[in-house]
């Protein structure tokens, strides 16, 4: 009897089931399903892009690009991972690419001795804690930052993170360990 119980697949969670249905409807061309999918994942994309350092003035464009990429490649989504994991993967890739472009621009700006850009603040994020966290996260290399954000802010498991960033679980743990140590160090510098 024991083996039977082991082979029994776990009951899908309501969200997973709804995600699968949503993907099916989207693939069938149901436009309302597209809107539902957007409504469900827009806050996640916004939060993740913000934590990965996409500046406020680029966030709307970034979210737009991420969702266009999601909708256009939905037919390639095989359903092996959770839909959210797949969206995280697209968003992480996009945010890292944006960060690289931003750094290149900054370097060019320094070379051309142009005016420093004005960094805008999202009025919904006036919290000093958010600003403090952003300052600490800024110091982390992109790979460690992505892992830390996915684990500590987004609440993903190491397995899910390894799916998102495309590396072994051990590497995830190692990056997380180093990122945490650097964050604590940064926090100690901020607290007198």
């Amino acid at each position, binding site marked *: 009897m024991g083996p039977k119980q082991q082979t029994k697949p776990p009951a899908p969670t309501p969200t997973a089931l709804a995600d699968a249905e949503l993907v099916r409807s989207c693939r069938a061309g149901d436009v309302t399903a597209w809107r539902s999918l957007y409504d469900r994942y827009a806050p996640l994309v916004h939060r993740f892009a913000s934590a990965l350092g996409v500046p406020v003035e680029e966030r709307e464009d970034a979210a737009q690009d991420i969702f266009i990429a999601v909708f256009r490649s939905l037919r390639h989504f095989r359903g092996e991972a959770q839909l959210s994991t797949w969206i995280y993967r697209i968003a992480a890739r996009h945010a890292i690419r944006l960060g690289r472009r931003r750094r290149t621009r900054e370097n060019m700006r320094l070379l051309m001795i142009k005016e420093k850009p004005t960094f805008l603040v999202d009025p919904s994020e006036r919290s000093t*804690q958010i600003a403090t966290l952003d300052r600490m996260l800024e110091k982390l290399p992109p790979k460690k930052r992505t892992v830390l954000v996915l684990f500590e802010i*987004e609440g993903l498991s190491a397995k899910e993170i390894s799916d998102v960033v495309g590396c072994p679980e051990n590497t995830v743990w190692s990056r997380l360990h180093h990122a945490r140590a650097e964050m604590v160090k940064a926090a100690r510098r901020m607290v007198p």
Partner: protein
Amino acid sequence: MKWLEEPHDDAERLLRECLDQAALRTGDEITHRRVWAKVADAIEAPEPRSYGRFIFAGAATVLMVAAGLVAYPHIRDLTRGPIVQMTPIAKNVVHATAPTKSESKAGAGEVTIAGAEPQATLIESERVPGNVVRTRAGERVRVALGGGAEADLAENSAITWDSQHRPSIEKGMARLSVPHQPPGWRFSVTAGPYVVTVVGTKFQVHVAMNTVSVDVTEGVVEVGRGSNSTRLVAGDSWNGPLYPEEAHTAPAAPQERPSALPTPAAKAPVATTRGLQDAQAALQAGDTRKAVEILTRAAQGTGPAAENASYELGRITRYNLNRPRQAVALWDKYRTRFPAGLLRTETDLSIVETLSQMGDVRAALTEAEAFVARHPTSERRMDVQRLAERLRASETPASLK
């Protein structure tokens, strides 16, 4: 258990609090809706067939742009006539004089530059604080400001650079032409206590004895002093006192500015997303009346926030206050104010749905047909078409009366 849930010191406590706070930043509903409007438009566009072709086209474009950037200064030199380059020996003041064929020093730290037609002379001055380019009566020069921007300096005018290397109109009049700046880049020019910030536009700054004025020909500019700022669009004019402290006014606030010109003072101020967030907070707290008040105020302004507020007013009236007819009137008002607004599709759709739910078959059918005609590529077109068919089928003689 969460990491640092039992912190050892203040630093760890701060870090945990920051992480918890970050988990709550999900963006506001208005932003999500605005992004959706763009996403919906984009995903309806035909999908590119091959990424390889696009990567190749992108790489070619990058190469061409890079080559253009490298070659641009040389081409400009060749095509725009003589360029007067400041020399390190005498770089403090430049005078563009009436055309002669000579260049002569006019005194210590002052150079008279000549040799070109007044309207065609392009001065490439070192953009360092203290350098001044000055014109006398009857003279006119163009000054390169970096980043492809140029100032056409009228007679009896002067331009200099401030400590942040920003061009600064010292006196007289300058017509500025600024090419579109890359994302995240802003071009600023100062005039008296004001900073005019642009992304890409043409405008004119005039510094007179006691006033500063800005006239926008193309694009959008922002005039600011301290934390106050106002946005001007093409055709707008603005003026403010050169010495605001003496005038005892807050010049950047349009309504307080002394102005003889048709300035945006007559216009409503630009609404901000802060108001919308306050409205959202009020709604969440169950204070619909307060939310409506905030949105009504925000809707009276201009810009995207006002547009969103106008739409939101209709939505709250429909769903929170349950006044469908009033909601339709509000959405209709939105359509009049923002005929090509970002939320136009959503507004049209809301009107169709509300009229249909109200049982106003004739009006709903008219709106539905108008929607199908107006938004032939909308994702909701098929839904609305189906609704129109149902309405047509249910149209009875009674409802036609």
